Each structure stands twice: as C-alpha cells, then as structure tokens.
C-alpha cells in the first residue's frame, strides 16, 4: 500500500491540472462564441486568440 504515497499526490496533481486548464480557458474567452469556433477552425486564417 506504500504506492499510495505516490499515487494520491499524482492523481490530485492531475486533477488540479484539469481544473487549472478549465479556469484558464474560462478566463481567456474560449467559451464566448461556441458557435463560431467550430466554423473558424476550417478557415486558413483561423485566429484562436479571441479578444477579451
């Protein structure tokens, strides 16, 4: 059971990584135009840095 000493911190770290990514995307206006994003990806001039 000693492996838990590593595994629990690792799983918590991964969880926080996910939460951090979500908060980053929320702050960077990634959810502002869900409709437009799926069309923009097809464009050659795709700009994935929406204005905040």
């Amino acid at each position, binding site marked *: 059971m000693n492996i838990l000493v590593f595994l629990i911190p690792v*799983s918590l770290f991964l*969880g926080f990584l996910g*939460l951090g990514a979500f908060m980053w995307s*929320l702050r960077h206006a990634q959810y502002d*135009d869900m409709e437009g994003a799926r*069309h*923009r990806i097809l464009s050659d*001039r795709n700009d994935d840095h*929406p204005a*905040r």
Partner: protein
Amino acid sequence: MTAAACACGGIAAQRPQTGATVLPDILIHLPTIHCATCIATAERTLGAEPGVLSARVNLSLKRALVTTDGTIGATELCTALERAGLPAHPLDTGRLATGPDAGARDLLLRIGVAGFAMMNVMLLSVAVWSGASDATRDLFHLISAAIAVPAIAYSARPFLAGAVRSLRAGRLGMDVPIALAILLATLMSAAEALSGAGGHAWFEAALSLTFFLLAGRYLDLSCRRAARSAAAELSALDVATATRIGAAGPEAVRSDALLPGDLIRVLPGQRLPADGEIVEGETDIDRAAMTGETLPVAAAPGDAVAAGETNLTGALVVRVTRAGQDTQLARLAALVATAETARSRHVSLADRAGGIYAPLVHVLSAAAFVAWWALSGDAWHALGIAIAVLIITCPCALGLAVPAVSVAASGRLFRRGLLVKSATALERLAEVDVVVFDKTGTLTTGTPAIADAPQGTDLRVALGLAEGSDHPAARALAAHARRAGESPAPVEHRREVPGQGVEGTWQGRRVRLGRASFTGGSDDGTSALWLAIDGQAPHRIRLAETLRDGASDAVAGLRAAGVRVMLLSGDGAGAVAEIAARLGIADARGGLLPADKVAALDSLAADGHRVLMVGDGLNDTAALAAAHASIAPHSGLDAARSAADIVLLGQDLSVVPEALALARLARRRMAQNLWLAAAYNVVAIPVALMGAATPLLAALAMSTSSITVSLNAVRLGR
C-alpha cells in the same frame, strides 16, 4: 449554446470619448451570418476599411465588435458590409446590457470546481466501496474531506445564500432542502472522517448534488440570458434620433433629448420622434402602429401628429409639443405596467412541484430521526439515517427536470424563428385555449395590394404617375402594373401633392392619381385609389390588404389544434370583416380602442379562458401584457416587442401553431420529468427510511435519475 458568451469586455462598455485617445468600440448586428465564409468575409471587409484597428465576429450572438481609431463611423462600416453582401445594422451600445456577464462565468467556475472535486472524491470513494478498510479507509476519508469541504464551501454558496434568503422571507423554497442536505451531509461526513468511527462518508453525494444542481441552474440562466440579450439587441436596433433645426442649422440629436418647443425636420419614411404640430409641409401619415388603421391619413400645417407614427410622402417641419416620457406613445406604454396581472399570478410547474416536495422531505427526514432515536436510542445513528433520507430524496433530477426541457424547447423554437423571452412563457403558452389576433401588421403586412385595376393605356398612365410617389398604394400599383407586363406611359411635369396624390401631363392632358377628393372620384368608404384623365370619368383602383405569409395556415392550424381564433382590431369594421372572411375567422371585432382590447381579454379571462394575444402595434401593447401569453412580430414597435413573451423573428405566421404544439409537448415533457424524478424517490425513500441507504446507492440513484431526465428533455430538441 451561447454559453459564456458576451464576455468580450468592450461589447457594452461605450467608453467615454475624451479626446482622440480613448475610442468607443462599434457593435454591428449581422442577422444573416451562419458559416465560416460569412465570418471570413465580414472580418476581411471590416479589416480592409481605413481606420479599423481590429474586428471580430461572434457567431453565437451574430455580432461584430470593431475597434477603430475614431475616423470611421458605424454607418460607413455597415455600407461596406452590405456591399459585400451582408446585411448589417449598427447597434446602440447604450441600450445593451452593460458589462460582461459575470453571473454566468461565476456559475461556470463553481461548476468546474464542483466537478473537479466530485471526480477526485469519487475515485477515493470507489476504493472505499470496493473494500478498502481500516487505516486506508480512514486516510481516504480524510483526503476526501480535505478536498470536499473547501470545494463545497465555494461551489454550494448560491444554494446556501438562496436558502438564507428564503428563510428570512419566511418561505420554504427549493433551496432550503438542498442547502440542508448538502450542509448536513458534509458536516456529518467530516465528523465521521475525523473520528475514524467507520460510518458512511457522503462527500461524493454532497458534491455530485452540488454539481448537478449547479448545471440545472446554469441551463436556466443561459436560456434566459440568450433571450434577454437578443431582446436587448432588438431594441438597440431602433436607434432613435431626430433632426432638430437649431440656431446653427439642422443637427442630429437623440429623441429623448428633445424639448417642447423644438422644431424638428421629419423626412418621408421616418418615424416621428415626438408628439407635435405640423408647422410646414403636407404629407400622408401612417398611423397603423398607433391605431391599427391601414390607410394613411392626410396631414397639413396645424394638424397634430404623435410619436410612433410614420411620415410617408412629404418632408415636414414639426413643432414639438410633448417629448420623451410625456408622449402619447410613452403614456400608452405605461398602461402595460398596470395590465401585467395574469403573468404575476402564474405559478410555474417547478415552483408547484417544489411547494409539495420541500415540506414533504423535511417531514419525512424529521420523522425518520425521531422514530430511529426512539427505537434504537442512538441519536448519532438516527441523525445519519435522517441525513440519508435528505440526500437520497434531494431534488437533483427535480432541479434539472424543468430547465433542461425549457432549454431544449426554446432552442428548437429559436431555430424556427421564435425568440422566447420569458422563463415561464412556454408553460403559459401550453395552457392557451383562445388565440386573439390583431389585424394590421400582424395578420396583414400593412402594405396594400391591388384588388382590381384598369387595363391597357389607363394602367400605363397610372404606372407613369405612380412611379413618382413613395406612397405605399402607389408602390403597390407600380408593382402590379409591372407584373402585368406594362411599361410606363410618358408622363411629364410629374409632381407629388403630399396628402393628395400625384399629378402630371400626358399627351397634353392633365392626369391625376390619388384620393377621391383630389381626382373627382366619389368616396364610398372602400379603400381605393382613383385615376383621373382629363375628359374621362375617373377610374377606381380598388385596394386590398396583403395577408402576411402563413396567415391562413396559422389560423387553420390553430383551429385544428382545438383553439378558438378571434380577431380584435382598431381598424374600421368593413376592413376587419373582409380579412376575417378571407381567413375564415368567425369572431371578429373592429374599431376597438386599446382599452377595449384589454377589456375584451379580461372578459375572456373571466370566463375561464387562457388567451394568447398576437399583435404588433402600440394599441396592442396593453393587450399583449394583459393576455396569458403573447407573441409580437419583430417588425412591430419596440413597446410591443418588450411587452410580449415571445418575439416572431421571421415573417411567416405559420410557426404560431407549431409553437403552440411544441409548448404543449414541452409542458407534457416537464410533467413527465417531474414524475420520473419522483419515481426514483419513491423507490429510494423506503430504503433510506429503513436505514439501508449507502453512499453507493445514493450516487447511483442521483446520477441515473439526472441522466434519465436530461435525456428525456434532449429528445425534444430535435
């Protein structure tokens, strides 16, 4: 989903214009954009204009946000876009909701935190359920507590605050059992974890409860927000400006800045910005929006005109007598506030379910506590069972049941061109058994058509004359003649006599087209245009109203759905009877004042009917507010649109019966969902009361019921 939309900081913030350094962003409404090419075209077109620093299209909101260096205005940008084939209108940033939507973002963040904590705690809990014991289990409980307690303290705050609010107001809302279950479960589990006594820990139940309920609340919010922002956009489209003739010549001002005594210029085609008296110029005035009359009336110096009326043919100078909130238009709109009674009396399905549910749950868990304490004598154990009852019955599915259906149904209606503005509109629409239509502007388009006209030379002369006027009847005649394949006769010295008609010379003879009095015709009360050629008896050109697309389908569809259809109009009885006959509406009344319409609706309501009002004009506004549910076409006045629950974005009326059918289906689905949620409880409550509930069982019941309810709602969206 328009999810966390609207967060572009500059959208509503019209920054103060101090010098040339700080510049306002320009917002442009692009109603037709729908694909990658549209986005690229719009952004390229805007970016190519001199003075544009950056332009970004938001497809969910159908808007473009443009940052400029101040040398270019919204009008120029719109012209450029229209040249590129994209219809565009400037939006009045001042009338859009201010600031990015903090509420939705805040909720999303709470959902994220609850979701993160739920998944991690669930991993640990699964280990406990599958047999981790002794020190390992105690360690897992402690780690769970360390994650869950702060996560719940943050993400469950909306429910805790809601519960405190409703307790202060002396009510038992849905938030009270929710907050109680979450709080008690967390505290009790924390105590178990710290003591290491080996009882159940309910952390994952408390967290998943928070997560699912927050998701329900978010759906509810995003649905209402999308409707609200679209409605604000509609009103922002009416940029109300007036041309004031000041000491230094004409200047453009906002119409609410006008003062009595100001002189304003009103060009043909413009809507009057204030009440006043004509000082100079003759014209025809279209009063359809105010009174429901179809035919324009002649107006000359000395006549009174009111805000909201449209000037058709001649340029006017008007002395303002009443402006802003004092205009007849504003005072009529104030009628609306007093008429909104049916709405406030309506209790939504979710509230009714909550009203039964909340007391029941409290009584049950209190009873469980008392009974187990009396039987076993162990208060701690009895409390555990009472909390299990609270958690297992918690309205996870109940919180999702109604908003999920609303979102799915509103989304489907939006794709069909109907914007649902009010949260309970669908439920109210489903209960409707009488539909009342307004005539002008709703069943008819307000532009006349030609019912019967002369042929040959006469028609060519009439066409030659009609081309010289922007009067709707003249335009209809011109379109009619062109469809008949005629080319205009060469009419010379053509001039428009505002309020009367058009005259000119053809082959040396004087020819006139216009009102009966102008042409020597005899007015018999039917709507008609007269053509006079010197030396001949005047010809009558009969006018008919154009039905809006889908009007007859709408009436037939509603009747097939078992709904009584009525027509209440402010127009003359003859015109109303004619339209009623064409559409097959038996119950039609004309010549009604705005207050008469409200009285008619009130008497219907007194007979126990639930009325849907469909209307567009100012004379309908009070009726729209008084009815059980209401629909206004977006071509209507701002006041009508804001009084209505649902705005018709397209032209076609045939979506009205579809909306009714969908609303009924949605309501059935909501009731079904509430019963489904209750069914899970019926199974789970006895288990919990017997003390056999485990966290695993609670987690299973909660997620399966939430998923069942959501899937049942999603079925409606396609």
